[in-house]
């Protein structure tokens, strides 16, 4: 975890490098067991991370600006990636709502809207916290106002998990499609190189 924090703070310390689209971790981080679901009865567990690339994003459905913008850009970035890597290596995109109280009944539709292959889940608070922590992500449910409405803060970056089920990188906003695709393609090359060593 320390390596990731170092890399991220380095990035923050260099705002001039605004075009950096991602950070590769020095050391892969193993993922814990977890289980998410949606109202269609589909599930997402650590087993779904194996043998394919996965991009995990945390968000919430009452998110007017950042979540749709991120998913829209990820759609463009993943479709660009599809032109640079083999079909088997095109990442799956998984949206996890950190707001199950409001979202559990209709979460499945959300990411699908941006691409039919994108999936959305939510789950028990404990499961959410497990994956949030394991991916060095963050969220916080804010205090409700007088109407009961509350906002949610969450990491703006998304996590990239390799086919061996380990966290390998973080993608950062603004998720420029071309640069993000380039970053993902490079990440995959270094991953394969590591496997053959």
């Amino acid at each position: 975890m320390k390596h990731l924090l170092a890399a991220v703070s380095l990035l923050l310390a260099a705002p001039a490098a605004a075009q950096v689209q991602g950070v590769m971790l020095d050391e892969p981080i193993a993922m814990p067991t977890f289980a998410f679901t949606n109202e269609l009865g589909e599930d997402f567990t650590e087993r779904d991370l194996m043998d394919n690339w996965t991009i995990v994003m945390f968000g919430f459905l009452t998110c007017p600006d950042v979540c749709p913008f991120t998913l829209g850009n990820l759609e463009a970035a993943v479709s660009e990636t599809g032109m640079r890597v083999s079909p088997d290596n095109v990442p799956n995109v998984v949206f996890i709502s950190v707001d199950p109280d409001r979202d559990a009944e209709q979460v499945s539709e959300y990411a699908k809207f941006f691409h039919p292959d994108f999936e959305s889940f939510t789950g028990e608070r404990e499961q959410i916290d497990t994956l949030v922590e394991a991916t060095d992500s963050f969220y916080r449910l804010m205090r409700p106002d007088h109407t009961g409405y509350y906002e949610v803060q969450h990491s703006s970056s998304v996590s990239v998990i390799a086919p061996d089920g380990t966290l390998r990188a973080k993608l950062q906003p603004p998720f420029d499609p071309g640069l993000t695709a380039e970053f993902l393609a490079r990440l995959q090359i270094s991953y394969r190189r590591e496997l053959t060593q």
Partner: protein
Amino acid sequence: MRFPVIAALLLPATAFADGIRVEDPFVPLAPPTARVHAAYMTLTNDGAAERQLVSISADGYAMAHLHLSEEKDGVATMSSVDLIALAPGQTVNFEPGGLHIMLMGPENPLAEGETVSLTLEFANGETEAVDAMVMPLGHGAHEGHGS
């Protein structure tokens, strides 16, 4: 250009926010189950006096708020904005990842090609009606390319 002139004659003069130029108002398409939408636009104060945008209302929504998304230490945060001051000649961009109008509690899902009717309300009591076009956010939409 004939229509705005006629409209100006038919409506009370105070219905217009004098000197405020609104460009490219749009509402990105959102998932049908989304409980919030966002509207973006560019506002320019072409007048000689400072203007303060203090609230927004939107037809077909329970509420509309001025909001600012910010990224602080890698965390996306949102906060309410009470007022947007526009100095003479100043342009303010509402754009994804930044200032936006949060449209809460839609009565209906969005459909491409429709418009959302917004009313901008200014501190001096003037209002400005804006029709925002519903459209896809677009492939490769970047921050700063909102207009």
